[in-house]
């Protein structure tokens, strides 16, 4: 009788631990960011430790990547400057004249000529307010 009670006591203690373990698993699963995969396009951002950290993301923003070879892409899809221009014009038409936020993620070693192609496409589409994405703090 005493032995059975001891066994029951031991098995009862484990219940709370299993609950905590599952809660931790759920926490880690929930905090894994899938957006990292979309953004990890092999671009090594330049450092800008004095910029303001990005806390709120605008859903309308268009992120344009320029790699070190000058190739332009959006969400890993490579685009020519003409296709980029048509996309930006369409975005401006759909926003009914409201400026579409454009963020240029340029590789640190990219030549300005590649960035210029994106900036010129933005200007042609009527977008004059652009932002350059940079690394404020390295995570690891």
């Amino acid at each position, binding site marked *: 009788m005493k032995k059975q009670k001891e066994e029951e006591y031991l098995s009862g203690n484990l219940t709370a631990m299993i609950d905590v373990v599952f809660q931790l698993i759920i926490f880690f*699963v929930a905090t*894994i960011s899938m957006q*990292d995969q979309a953004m990890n396009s092999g671009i090594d951002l330049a450092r*800008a430790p004095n910029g303001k950290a990005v806390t709120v993301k605008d859903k309308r923003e268009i992120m344009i990547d320029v790699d070190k070879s000058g190739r332009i892409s959006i969400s890993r899809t490579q685009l020519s400057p003409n296709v980029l221009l048509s996309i930006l014009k369409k975005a401006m038409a759909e926003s009914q004249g409201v400026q579409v936020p454009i963020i240029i993620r340029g590789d640190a070693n990219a030549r*300005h000529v590649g960035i210029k192609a994106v*900036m010129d496409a933005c200007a042609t589409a009527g977008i004059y307010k652009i*932002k350059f994405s940079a690394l404020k703090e390295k995570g690891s």
Partner: protein
Amino acid sequence: MARKKRRQHLTAGELNLTAMIDVAFQLLSFFIITIHPQDVLTNLDVFRPSQESESVPSPAMPNMIRIMIFSNALTLNENPMTFRNMDAVMTQLASHDTTQTILIMCRAESKHKDLVAVLNMCAKLKLTNLSVISSN
């Protein structure tokens, strides 16, 4: 006489949770090992003058700071500078007026990180009236 092994007899409705707890701990270990802090990003604002805009800053405007970025050099108002020198001069200029116009002209062969470094310097000094122009 050999002792008989005790077998765990489960009644109907009971589950052996040992394997599940093992899997749960393995999953937890995996996530703890693979999680890493994310990079903190920043967006540096610039204004690109439109060709039709009347407010295109002319390079000849007085009280305008003109920064030219070449492939391997920098100039501030046509004076060759290093980043350190430029930081000191810009700090002095910013102490008088943070609303003055900064015109950043980038050569085609200049590196993007140099432009970002200049923008970072302006962000540090709270200089917000920035324009970026590309030059050949």
